[in-house]
């Protein structure tokens, strides 16, 4: 009869856990977050020997203590969810440290299967492992050599999983094969006896394991209600710990870890043979260049620059294509459909086109950006360079209270804040992830640029570039100050987590691994943010459609709509910053949808009409289809052009060099007529209030897509806090600039 099994994959980072997971589950996987944590949860299904098997990929960890979210998740799952089998994935080339966590897993009494992964690499390095002896030394668990990347050993692994799952019914005994030494063993025995007398504890945990955890001073175990209220048990623990310290001169925790490693060293000595002279590996040779004293920093900067170029520029033609297809053919078809059912020219048509389609569109345009970012991150992580990037940059980032790995998300933020939020996943500690995501929203993204450009050219003419540059600098400055502030307040009780980081061997990434990485994360973005973005753009549409000073629904001028009225009510707040006119406030309100919308709204309220006009005559279907194909072709050619142009753009950073950029489709003559808007702005703003307005646009609530991404990753509280903080800071800085400018006579 077919049965349902649940198995878990556990092991150190970089041991090839994901590759084994992908090989077992194929495309049948789902990515989410562990409840209440920012740690990714991957789950998939596999069919093994006619049985349905749910495979849970536990986060990569080095130990089973409760000190980090990853470790606590792994441990709780293994101890409380009673999986039918736990596959411990280890890197066969680095057995000693990998086995440390395996031993802890076996100690919980869980049915463990050991996957000796990357056995091919180990053999190539001349490492020989006696599997039988290793299995015996680990209490008889199955040991299966695998090379998941090539698919070698996967059938044997499946068989071992099935065998363990079907023959180990609730085997929860904790094997006592590590001898922790006379002092600790005596204490374990005392505590174990006490635990066996307590049904609540005895049934929830393997007694020997619980005794060891108590002696290790495990915070989670000591906080259990059944332990906290048990004076007799706590006194016995105190007494035992005191006795150990007196006899052995060390605290129990240190002794236990030392003995565990001693046990493993001994086991490895008996079962693994290495060549007597260790060859310098290819990985070490690559590393001597990439983290070289002189080349390390330039190579790092070049890599980051390339990632930035890819996210910001290479994605642009594809982004324009998606935008064009949505605002062109797709809009046409929806309109045609509505006209067919007699709703043409009504407010429903306007809601569909200007509310819903444009809302969905503003989310879909992020997809090319995210696909390219996730590709870049997958390459950096899977090759092992990401750890080196952190190694090279840590000293610099540590100055502002961040980790070396924070550099990439912050840099990506200059392209777009949404991928920056997701890029923080590469950081190990939750505090670092939250702080980096928070700060990345102050990096001036590409969507804010059109605002600076239009104001710059309206007020500063040839010196417009200075305004743009100043905005980038203000963003960085605010981020640094915010970093200092948050470290001393919100994160005061969370000391900077240790840097301590493994530098894994360089490896060639697999196509399948990269593809799954991109696909899972992009799908999760669409799934997670659609509702928020849609809701926001519909709300703005409704506000603009409701007339309050005469006019009719949907055709009312913005100034007479509820939107205009609301802006008038809010506008006095901005008077001290020099832009108290309702039009500016309205632009800021709708700019929450996306910052470039600030320009669109300003243009609507100063020179144009409310909603974009819907064409009367629609082009035939054939023409639209041809248009999609033609523009897709063009977008691909332009993507190629942008990739090629990374070279001249990089070379041109050097002073005095001018390398021409490639133009595959001839020069584009892009000159939108914005003079009408510029003169309207000159009538409504002074140069000083224009600067204050731009600073506000830079700093206030990032767009709704970023807010949605943040909520998805960090939950509503952190997101509201960020939104509130950024509003307040934006106001304070804008007011300071305006009032300070007035005092200096710059008004």
């Amino acid at each position, binding site marked *: 009869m077919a049965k349902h099994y649940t198995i878990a994959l556990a092991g150190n980072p970089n041991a090839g856990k994901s590759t084994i997971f992908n090989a077992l589950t194929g495309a049948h996987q789902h990515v989410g977050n562990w409840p209440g944590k920012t740690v990714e949860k991957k789950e998939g299904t596999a069919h093994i020997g006619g049985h349905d098997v749910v495979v849970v990929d536990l986060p990569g960890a*080095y*130990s089973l*203590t409760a*000190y*980090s979210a990853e470790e606590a998740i792994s441990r709780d799952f293994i101890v409380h969810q009673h999986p039918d089998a736990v596959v411990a994935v280890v890197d066969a*080339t*680095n*057995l*000693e*440290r990998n086995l*440390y966590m395996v031993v802890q897993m076996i100690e919980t009494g869980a049915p463990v299967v050991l996957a000796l992964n990357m056995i091919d690499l180990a053999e190539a390095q001349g490492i020989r492992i006696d599997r039988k002896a290793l299995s015996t030394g680990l209490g008889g668990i199955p040991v299966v050599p695998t090379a998941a990347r090539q698919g070698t050993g996967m059938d044997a692994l499946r068989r071992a999983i099935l065998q363990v799952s079907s023959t180990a019914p609730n085997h929860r005994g904790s094997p006592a094969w590590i001898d922790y030494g006379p002092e600790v063993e005596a204490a374990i025995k005392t505590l174990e006896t006490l635990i066996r007398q307590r049904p609540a504890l005895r049934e929830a945990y393997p007694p020997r394991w619980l005794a060891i955890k108590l002696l290790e001073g495990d915070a989670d175990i000591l906080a259990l209600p059944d332990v906290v209220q048990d004076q007799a048990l706590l006194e016995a623990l105190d007494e035992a710990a005191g006795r150990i310290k007196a006899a052995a001169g060390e605290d129990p*925790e*240190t002794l236990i*870890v*030392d003995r565990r*490693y*001693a046990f493993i060293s001994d086991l490895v000595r008996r079962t693994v043979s290495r060549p007597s002279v260790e060859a310098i590996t290819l990985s070490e040779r690559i590393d001597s260049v990439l*983290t*070289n*004293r*002189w080349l*390390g*920093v330039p190579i790092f900067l070049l890599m980051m620059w390339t990632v930035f170029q890819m996210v910001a520029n290479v994605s642009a033609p594809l982004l324009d294509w998606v935008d064009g297809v949505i605002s062109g053919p797709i809009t046409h078809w929806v309109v045609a459909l509505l006209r067919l059912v007699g709703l043409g020219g009504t407010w429903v048509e306007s809601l569909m086109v200007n509310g819903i389609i444009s809302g969905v569109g503003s989310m879909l345009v992020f997809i090319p950006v995210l696909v390219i970012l996730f590709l870049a991150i997958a390459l950096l992580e899977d090759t092992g360079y990401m*750890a080196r990037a952190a*190694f*090279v*940059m*840590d*000293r*610099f980032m*540590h100055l502002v209270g961040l980790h070396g790995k924070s550099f990439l998300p912050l840099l990506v933020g200059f392209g777009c804040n949404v991928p920056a939020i997701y890029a923080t996943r590469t950081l190990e500690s939750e505090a670092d992830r939250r702080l980096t995501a928070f700060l990345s929203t102050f990096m001036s993204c590409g969507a804010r640029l059109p605002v600076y450009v239009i104001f710059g050219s309206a007020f500063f003419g040839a010196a417009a570039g200075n305004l743009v540059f100043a905005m980038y600098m203000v963003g960085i400055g605010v981020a640094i100050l915010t970093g200092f502030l948050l470290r001393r307040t919100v994160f005061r009780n969370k000391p900077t987590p*240790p*840097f*301590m*980081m*493994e*530098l*894994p*061997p360089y490896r060639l990434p697999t196509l399948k691994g990269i593809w799954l990485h991109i696909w899972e994360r992009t799908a999760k973005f669409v799934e997670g943010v659609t509702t928020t973005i849609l809701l926001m753009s519909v709300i703005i549409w409704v506000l603009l459609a409701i007339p309050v000073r005469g006019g009719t629904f949907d055709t009312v001028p913005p100034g007479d709509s509820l939107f205009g009225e609301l802006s008038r009510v809010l506008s006095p707040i901005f008077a001290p910053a020099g832009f108290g006119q309702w039009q500016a406030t309205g632009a800021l309100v709708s700019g929450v949808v996306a910052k470039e919308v600030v320009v669109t709204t300003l243009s609507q309220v100063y020179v144009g009409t409310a909603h974009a006009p819907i064409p009367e005559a629609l082009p035939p279907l054939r023409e639209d289809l041809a248009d999609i194909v033609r523009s897709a072709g063009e977008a691909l050619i332009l993507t190629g052009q942008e990739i090629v142009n990374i070279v001249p753009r990089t070379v041109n950073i050097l002073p005095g060099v001018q390398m021409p950029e490639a133009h595959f489709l001839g020069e584009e003559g892009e000159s939108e007529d914005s003079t009408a808007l510029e003169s309207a702005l000159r009538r409504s703003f002074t140069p000083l209030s224009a600067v204050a307005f731009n600073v506000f646009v830079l700093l206030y609530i990032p767009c709704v897509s970023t807010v949605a991404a943040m909520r998805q990753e960090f939950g509503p509280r952190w997101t509201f806090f960020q939104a509130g903080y950024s509003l307040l800071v934006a106001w304070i800085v804008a007011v300071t600039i305006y009032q300070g400018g007035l005092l200096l006579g710059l008004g």
Partner: protein
Amino acid sequence: MTTATLTAFRTLDQLLPGQRAIIQKVGGRGAFRRRMMDMGLVTGAEIEMVKAAPLGDPIEYKIKGYHLSLRRAEARVIVVDF
């Protein structure tokens, strides 16, 4: 503990590239200390300094057959013999 005995200690951050040492004692406290021990920095383990990062900090070490990087401030709490 007097200053005289303190200066007699040699700590992990004092190793030069290519130098090896045996770990005598792991200092620090709580989660940080436990994490170091979990990563294999335990009494009696042999450790080799590989190199410092281009900006001088952190430092790359080789321990138990793998590469680990630590900030100087973190390496300073580990007493070694070399």
